[in-house]
């Protein structure tokens, strides 16, 4: 296997539980104890009610493609190996996530049901991605 050259996430104290769960192939997000909303990306206060009572909870991993682009002209050499689908997936629980759809670009549509999958890009790093449900 050739060396992985794409940027790797650097967790913070706040985001580490998300990345550690991903490494164990689980999707978990913060849920607000004040207003019950699930939120993403990880942070220290709920963006809806400003409560800091945030708890990590497993989520379904099911969602739909809210929007997407097909990148045919990559910005860097490390992404130039093939066209790829960047997407915003809206989870059943509400939050949206930036991700890739693991499917042929011509197959992807707005509104398409998708389910989570995990890409172990290095022994230490796992990216949360989605595939057609």
């Amino acid at each position: 296997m050739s060396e992985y050259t794409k940027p790797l996430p650097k967790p913070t104290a706040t985001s580490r539980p998300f990345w550690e769960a991903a490494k164990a192939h689980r999707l978990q997000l913060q849920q607000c104890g004040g207003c019950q909303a699930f939120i993403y990306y990880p942070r220290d206060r709920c963006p809806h009610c400003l409560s800091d009572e945030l708890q990590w909870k497993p989520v379904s991993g099911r969602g739909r493609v809210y929007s997407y682009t097909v990148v045919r002209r990559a910005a860097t050499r490390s992404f130039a190996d093939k066209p790829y689908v960047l997407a915003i997936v809206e989870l059943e629980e509400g939050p949206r996530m930036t991700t890739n759809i693991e499917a042929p670009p011509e197959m992807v549509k707005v509104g398409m049901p998708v389910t989570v999958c995990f890409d172990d890009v290095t022994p230490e790093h796992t990216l949360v991605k989605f595939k057609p449900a």
Partner: protein
Amino acid sequence: MGALTDKYCIVGVGETPHMRPSNRTTLSMACEAVSKAMADAGLKPSDIDGMTSYQAGDSTTSAHVATSLGIRLNYCLDILGGGSSTEALVAHAIGLLEAGYAKVIVCFRSMNGRSGRRMGGQVPGGPIPVATAEGDNQFNMGWGWTTPAQRFGMSAMRYLHDTGCTTRAFAEIAVAHRYHASLNPKARLRTPITIEDHQRSRWVVKPFRLLDCCQETDVSAAIIVTSRERAYDLRHPPVFIKGGYARTMTENPGWNYSRPVLHYVAGNYGWKRAFGMAGISHSDVDFISCYDAFTFTTLIQLEANGFCRPGEAGEFVKGGRLQIDHELPSNLSGGHLSEGYTHGIQMVIENVRQLRHRADDACPGWAEGKHTYDRQAGCRQLKRARICCGMAWGYENMASCLVLGGVMS
């Protein structure tokens, strides 16, 4: 009308050529742009006492430029900014003038936007710039989300889905702005294009084709703001600052996460303030500028700023409405799509020239100081140019606007 409306003016504009590559420093280019703006206004270095700039960690500073040109500043500030910063810095300049911090203020942008750091910070085929995605970037960069095309393409794709608009609407904008560039000797791309040319051009980041994307260039540009009283002594008819905004919205905390409607952008919340301040309605606007890093960023701002209703911009731009001699001419220099990419400031510069009735075109009459309005002969001066609405875009949740008026307004 607001108490400050028409009290302050833009009196000088200047820019370097659009180069690729410049083989120059951002300092060298900024000195040229600021010198040209001073000459345009009829001002000397000793007349300037305020300077501001915006940049993206890719440029020189006001202090360096002022020192290089023998200018002593009573006020200087450089901000991290983007496509909506010029209009925000004009509003900021009004505050400085009103408070007495400075009397004549230069605002500039200087960037090697093609040969140096490109938007997104990267070079196709070049070295891999970062190995780690830190801070907010840990939630987008790893999946290959780094550039404006990828980001705004996401809003554009959802817009097409929600409204039934097609990419032929994007083409209308590319065609209009290219036609204007064909009348601008400074523009990089001057060959007119058709809607079919646009539809045939290759995908870059779907739904954007090559002809949806701006012309990245190495360039510097500058404007000068001062009081009405000072303006009357200077070289050109003053261009009056009538109103504006520099607006954000709450729904987007960073990137495109969890906003109710991705393409409901910040301009929606700003335009009533700007128009109220200026004391105008949409029907008073003779022409517009509309930030066109991509065709879509022009399209979406037309409805965000109330020129048409949400979802109707595709219909609105049909049939060449944005072209010169039509209902609402847009980006008369050719804009970012065809003149070259300045990160926003050239829109204001072109609007100033049009409002002065002194477009720097190749019109045969202009050599003797009189425009012919003959487009075949290369004239791009509008016949009626009294009120202009300039709409600028940082990203979906950040926008600005600057309503300007000529002496006849």
